[in-house]
């Protein structure tokens, strides 16, 4: 994944907010990047641009040799569905669907058969240790369990890239460690992980750390491929 002179400016009436200064960045396959920085420093903005969710004001983002914001909107949705998995701070489980149904969503969007959806979702929930909670709705689960359902759902389309926005932000220390070890496991499976966090202990699990402050990327000692223009 490659960012080429990317910047993002939010315009609201007269005022402009520069959420991200011009940034050039390269994230190789299988990397595990932690993005840290204070609140409002543009971490989420960067992540959403990486996730084909919001177009940069300037610059291009390349994924597997494709400039993703030059694709029509339907194909961008397709790209998210095939290659990208999101983990949210607020889990974002669909409240009226059970755990297994939530995990089925990406498979349903990919038009998988009902049997495959079921079988796959069961395996994934088993993988995150929730085989006994399959038919529970999100509000019947603890926050830690909810985040594990969200992890299983994220894995359902077997994404090559995982984008996590403060995945441990709402969790207690024990479940936090659990989620982090799952993410490390997913990284070992060969998936690229880009994780936003302001928790330094979580960031330590990453292979490298990217510091953002006031919309600019600051080089970190462990960074070598990173440039800021």
């Amino acid at each position, binding site marked *: 994944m490659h960012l080429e002179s990317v910047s993002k400016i939010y315009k609201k009436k007269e005022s402009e907010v520069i959420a991200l200064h011009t940034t050039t960045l390269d994230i190789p396959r299988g990397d595990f990047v932690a993005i840290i920085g204070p609140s409002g420093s543009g971490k989420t903005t960067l992540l959403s641009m990486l996730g084909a969710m919001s177009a940069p004001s300037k610059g291009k983002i390349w994924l597997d040799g494709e400039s993703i914001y030059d694709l029509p909107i*339907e194909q961008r949705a*397709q790209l998210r569905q095939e290659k990208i998995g999101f983990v949210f*701070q607020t889990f*974002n489980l669909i409240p009226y669907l059970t755990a297994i149904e939530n995990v089925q*969503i990406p498979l*349903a969007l990919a038009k998988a058969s009902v049997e495959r959806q079921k079988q796959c979702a069961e395996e994934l929930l088993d993988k995150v240790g929730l085989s006994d909670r399959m038919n529970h709705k999100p509000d019947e689960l603890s926050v830690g369990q909810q985040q594990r359902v969200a992890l299983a759902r994220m894995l359902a389309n077997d994404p090559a890239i995982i984008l996590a926005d403060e995945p441990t932000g709402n969790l207690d220390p024990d479940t936090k460690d659990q989620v982090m070890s799952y993410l490390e496991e997913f990284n070992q499976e060969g998936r690229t992980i880009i994780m936003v966090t302001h928790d330094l202990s979580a960031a330590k699990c990453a292979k490298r750390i990217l510091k953002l402050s006031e919309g600019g990327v600051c080089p970190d000692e462990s960074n070598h491929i990173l440039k800021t223009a």
Partner: protein
Amino acid sequence: MNLRTIVWKEMRERPTAMFVSLLAVMLSVTALVAIRNVAVFSEIEVADKLDKLGANVLILPKEASLQDYYAADMQSETIPEEIVSELVFAQMTGVEAIAPKLCIPATIHDQKTTLTGILPQSEIQKMASWQGGVLFKKHEGCKAKINLANEKDDSPEALAKRRTLQNLGDKDVILGAEYAEATGLKQGDKIQILGEEFSVLTVLDATGTVDDSRVFAHLHNVQDLSKSGEVVNVIEVMGCCKDVANGLIGKLQSLLPDTKIMTIANVVKTQISVNQMMTNISYMFLTILVVIGGASMASSTFSNVIERRREIGTLMALGASPKFVTNLFLVKAVLLGLAGGIGGYVLGSVLAYFLGPYFADISVYPLPSLMLIATGTAVFVTLIASYIPARRAANLDPCICFKEV
């Protein structure tokens, strides 16, 4: 799981959220179906009456009070038979056929019945040819389909449909279906009427009118048997409807000042105006359905979209295309439209079944064709109303899903 299951589960989770708009759609469909249902049967009833009647103008005795158009000949007052020849000689444009009748109550073959004397058309035509003219002048361009006896089809059975007959012999009678069944008489049987023997020429098919219980004989026989003289109770006139509307009645009235001229329009006028009113009311309910049902559907879909912004953003993050998101709301609209349409159809049909006899004095039964129209309209309205909110959902910024609560 697919789009439909997602829609279904969301609706099941909070059934009350869409309840108001469902109710609005359903109740207006109910009213629409009920009114339309009654109106359709009322229209059928009018058409039926007109069809059974054949004649659209009646010439009655001055004192006659007309209770039932279809039994106009059932009365004691009479008019002279010579009016028939007066009418023939007048050669009025628009008068296409005339059928004089005389009815007397009688017990024939141990069965109470009405003996009805009719004058075969052939004898009226003979009257016209003595005059040296054709029978009635066929009005040029008259489009009215009038049930006339004609020379080519002179089977006695035609009486059932047309209420006039080409030929009827001196010693023949024709039996109504009910009367024949009650007495067991059939074609060719001999029958004693007021001391004279007749033979049954034919038995008519059932028509559902008073004719079914009658016995028909030649007018002059009935006059002789009842010793009533050369009189009739009524002369049914088949007039071209255009002429009936354009002053034929006035001309007849001045030709025959001692009679009462009635048109079918006088009789079914109230029913036709009730039908018109019901049609107007059904348009009103259609407007209500479109405006109220549509507006409440649009507003509840809008608030549904706003409430579910995070969910929509999440689905998009998971790879849902804008089209999928649009369909999420449109499928819901279709389901609500179907539910409102079918529910409204059922309620409306039940309502019509009970209210029909009250309001329009007719029996009303459910019309399956109305179900198609009702659900079609309801689905159309809910779909149109949800379209803009659904498009808006698809255009939401998916980044909402990253927002902390």
